[in-house]
């Protein structure tokens, strides 16, 4: 329902006949997936996906429900390890490290690749403790003052500081949905990750809260590589620079967002973004 009947109006002179990879090729690659397959028991959920995700930009994964975009996202910080019977093959490189390599400690990987979930899930602790938890377990702050600084910075970056600075001791679960989600973003930022994965971060939020998160994502991309899964075509168009379209476990098409929304190569992409299926 929230899919646009026509491509967004972002089109313009900048759309050129460049390759599908478009602007993606310009920035250095942060995450690179090569022939990734994911199986849930017998089910083949992701089929041979290869994609390069450029640094310090926003990449959106779009596609109909059950297409595997969230599954693929969760491969990037190995959250699928938690799922019984889930098997991942192929290579995923973060910078030049294979994240599935034996030598890679999953704790370090998750410190480098943070995650924000679909439903805001603050810990049932104070706002301060929510943000301080990551730095605490990783030993990022030696003193109380350092921790205070990390918490303040993270909350500022998540555009939440002004709203909560006077009630840091209050439970994080007492905030509104949008505030909770920004708290979760602050919590993820506090560990100073290089990549932030966002799994439909706005699907549980109202339009105003969504707008704030989108603004925030736009600011965050100056420092972080962001990968966002979204069901909303407009959102993908508004926040991302690259878009990848998944369908039935396949990565159908990837390229600059402008290009994808105005001139998709594949008929399925065209049908999906024009709302013919979803």
């Amino acid at each position, binding site marked *: 329902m929230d899919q646009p009947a026509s491509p967004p109006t972002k089109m313009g002179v900048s759309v050129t006949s460049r390759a599908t990879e478009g602007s993606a090729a310009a920035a250095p690659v942060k995450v690179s997936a090569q022939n990734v397959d994911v199986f849930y028991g017998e089910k083949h959920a992701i089929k041979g996906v290869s994609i390069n995700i450029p640094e310090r930009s926003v990449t959106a994964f779009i596609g109909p429900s059950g297409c595997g975009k969230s599954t693929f996202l969760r491969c990037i910080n190995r*959250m699928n390890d938690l799922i019984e019977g889930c098997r991942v093959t192929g290579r995923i490189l973060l910078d030049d490290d294979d994240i599935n390599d034996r030598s890679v400690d999953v704790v*370090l990987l998750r410190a480098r690749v*943070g995650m924000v979930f679909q*439903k805001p899930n603050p810990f049932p602790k104070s706002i301060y403790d929510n943000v301080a938890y990551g730095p605490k377990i990783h030993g990022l702050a030696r003193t109380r003052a350092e921790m205070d600084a990390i918490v303040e910075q993270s909350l500022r970056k998540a555009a939440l500081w002004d709203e909560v600075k006077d009630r840091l001791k209050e439970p994080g679960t007492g905030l509104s949905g949008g505030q909770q989600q920004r708290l979760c973003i602050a919590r993820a930022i506090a560990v100073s990750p290089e990549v932030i994965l966002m799994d439909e971060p706005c699907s549980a939020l109202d339009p105003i809260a969504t707008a704030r998160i989108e603004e925030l994502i736009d600011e965050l991309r100056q420092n972080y590589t962001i990968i966002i899964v979204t069901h909303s075509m407009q959102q993908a168009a508004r926040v991302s620079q690259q878009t990848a379209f998944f369908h039935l476990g396949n990565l159908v098409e990837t390229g600059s967002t402008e290009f994808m929304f105005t001139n998709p190569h594949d008929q399925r992409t065209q049908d999906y973004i024009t709302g013919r299926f979803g």
Partner: protein
Amino acid sequence: MADVALAPSPAPDAPRTRSADLIARSLSRRRRAEVRFRAYGLAAVIAAIAFVVFLFWTILQSGLPAFFQAAMTVEVTLDPAVIDVGPRPVRADFPNEAAFAAADLAWQTALAGKNFGSLIERAVNAVLATPASSRDIRAIYASNERFRLRDMVAADPGLIGRTIPFTLVASADVDVWFKGNIDRSLPENQQQLTLAQQQITDAMIADGTMKSVFASWIFTNVDSRSSPATAGLAGAFMGSLFMMLVVIALSVPIGVAGAIYLEEFAPKNRITDLIEVNINNLAAVPSIVFGLLGAAVFINAMHLPLSAPIVGGLVLSLMTLPTIIIATRGVLRAVPPSIREAATGLGASRVQVVFHHVLPLVIPGILTATIIGVAQALGETAPLLLVGMSAFVANIPTGLFDQSTALPVQLFLWQGNENRNFFEPRTSAAIIVLLGLMILLNALAIFLRQRFQTRW
């Protein structure tokens, strides 16, 4: 009503009206079914409440009077001619500890050999119009009272030669007569008291010597066969307490740790499935079977002492473990996965996820599970009978290896006592004590749950 409102009318859109009509008809059927179901539910709840009320009413009605017993206050003259055994030895007069201990013991033995009964007999006769026989007087007060008087003197030899007011607890048979728990019109050969004893009792009731007093000894005395009127629950209470300490110390850490391991760390495969099935089965094993196991393993194989709280506690721990494991796994499963994901996504290790996030959330649930398990163990009787806890023990246990009995077992013993009309109310009184303890434990569970409750 709906039938009338939606009565079929030959409207142009006939199909819709017909289906509306069908729905209207099914509506009344559905409503009847709903009303019926609610009535069944309500009836079940009312029946359950009625049973509980009836149960409590009978227990309270029968048990509360047992907390008050007949007693007579008399003036006892501690005549030196009868009981004086010289001054109690003092430590300073003896060269060493052993010599002093021996002399002190000799003094106590000498005092114990004195006839305190005759002092009581004199005191009782003093309040009677006509002197009664020794035999009759011994029948009207609890025999333990002689020893209580002796212990008073031993504790304070300065009392010798003085006249003190002393409240004698009436014997069980007199208490029954006093409370009217026996038909007074029965012929003498069917009565517990002889005619002479009945007359003494009635005279003492008439002149106010014999009164109803609060039976505090129920809480402070141990069980007694020779003096049932002054028998108490102290030994059984301490025995139960020691057993509960064993149960809490063993089954809570093992149960909670086992549940956390199975739920959070163990791989899900055939072996863990098998373990899970077995734990569920263990929870359903009749408790007496655990008693047999305890007798075979702890007593026969490990040679632990019979009738000891350690053995009872071990057996009850085995019984409580499955309950605690199952309940703890239940509360662990109820923790929203989003909390685990959030912590894992930040780079917390599995142990950190469990100990920083999951465990704090489930502490109230674990406490509740523990207290329910412990309360269940507290009320368990059958397995204890098989490890010798039904023995008559006339001491308050001071440790885990002392012989002792337990509250529910004491109940069972009193319930089986042949002095029916005295012990029936006594049993109810013991039930009230046990229930009171259970309610206290449950209140503690509720308090702790509220206290540690985290909302999210």
